């Protein structure tokens, strides 16, 4: 909790070798994300947003370079430590919600706490609190199939926060939602970022995200094109 930078990448690169050619999905990304920051990663389709999301989240290994979370080089972690990182330090939110379809909203939110070894009573209590906080207190026992897209994404956000992560990583969290529902989700994430001090990093092409972001990183062809802080954005607008 003392580090200035929750996430730091150093010459991060990911190449895919497709027969003769190389796809440089990421090519030398240097990025520092402050604790409590709300950062958006913008870029056209294929620019490498999801790849960057996967690297920072410890879901894939880079070809070159490093990712530090709380100053720990995550390429040095073994499978067990990586699972612990995913469980305790990072909460993930996806475009396609990715809830476990056979489990209720409550059970979905409790799942990360099972892995963290939180006792049952506490799990239930915390999960209900979180679902209340995202406005789904009356949908605890609904399965994902019985919820709207926006509601599913709220469950996913509650689940991402279950183990009080340092970072919430979101890959196009509003990509499958209509304008208003998307806006609600963005505001919810911003509120949680402010209230809980959790660092939020979202990959997006949603321009609505610009208004709430502290900084916007524009990437293209796997490289950082420019970085704007909110003041600059406000001036431009």
């Amino acid at each position, binding site marked *: 909790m*003392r580090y200035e930078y929750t996430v730091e990448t150093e010459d991060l690169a990911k190449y895919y070798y497709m027969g003769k050619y190389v796809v440089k999905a990421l090519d030398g990304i240097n990025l520092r994300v402050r604790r409590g920051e709300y950062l958006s990663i913008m870029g056209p389709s294929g620019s490498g947003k999801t790849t960057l999301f996967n690297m920072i989240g410890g879901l894939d290994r880079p070809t070159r370079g490093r990712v530090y979370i*709380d*100053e*720990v080089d995550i390429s040095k972690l073994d499978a067990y430590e990586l699972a612990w990182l*995913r469980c305790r330090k990072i909460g993930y939110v996806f475009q396609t919600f990715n809830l476990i379809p*056979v*489990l209720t909203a409550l059970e979905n939110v409790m799942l*990360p706490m099972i*892995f963290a*070894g939180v006792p049952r009573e506490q799990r239930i209590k915390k999960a209900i609190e979180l679902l209340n906080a995202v406005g789904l207190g009356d949908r605890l026992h609904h399965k994902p199939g019985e919820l709207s897209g926006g509601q599913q994404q709220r469950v996913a956000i509650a689940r991402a926060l279950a183990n009080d992560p340092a970072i919430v990583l979101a890959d196009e969290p509003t990509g499958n939602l209509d304008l208003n529902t998307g806006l609600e989700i963005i505001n919810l994430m911003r509120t949680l970022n402010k209230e809980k001090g959790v660092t939020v990093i979202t990959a997006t092409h949603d321009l609505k995200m610009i208004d709430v972001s502290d900084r916007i990183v524009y990437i293209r062809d796997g490289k950082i094109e420019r970085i704007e802080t909110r003041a600059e954005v406000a001036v431009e607008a």
Partner: protein
Amino acid sequence: MSRVGTWEIGEIKFPFSEAVRFSLENIKKRFTRAAITAASVVLGIAFMNSLMMMAAINQQVSGMGGIELYQYWLLFISLLVCAVGITNSMLIAVTERYKEIGTWKTLGALDKHVLELFLIEASLIGLIGGLVGYIAGLVAAVIYGAVFQGAPMDKISSAFFGTKMVPLPLPTAPALLVLSLVVAVGISLAASLYPAYKGAKLEPAVAFRFEV
């Protein structure tokens, strides 16, 4: 546990009771898929039981005979076919759940937890399939004995419970029940090992790219 930087890497837990609960939910909610897998087990186990019990009824009726070597061969082949059916069905089940496996892993699941989930599911399917196959096999044997062999009820009952002396001892119905469940769970587990392993090894980034 271990220390990395300033992190205290704690234990990752996944109680067996929770795993069983999730596997049961999966079977209930994806009943068609589970039923297709179980159908392979049912057929193999039903064949095994009918073969054994028909032989026992024949013995009671004619006072001789047992199971020929070629029948064991048939049994072996049928159980092998059953195993291939389960593997095929489980491979599809795993493929259908790529995204879900990726999600489990982002929440903290280790490879062994994913393996555990699929193997518990396989055991439960084996158990259910074994029980249904056992009943179906015995029903088939009774119909065979009563209708085609004209065996009276007491002879069928003797075949079931082994009360009359026969040339070659064959398993009784209660023994067949135990055998059926053991064989069913064993085959189901063995046949699911590869699909479950394949699912467990999946990296989240790969799992999420699939289909999308």
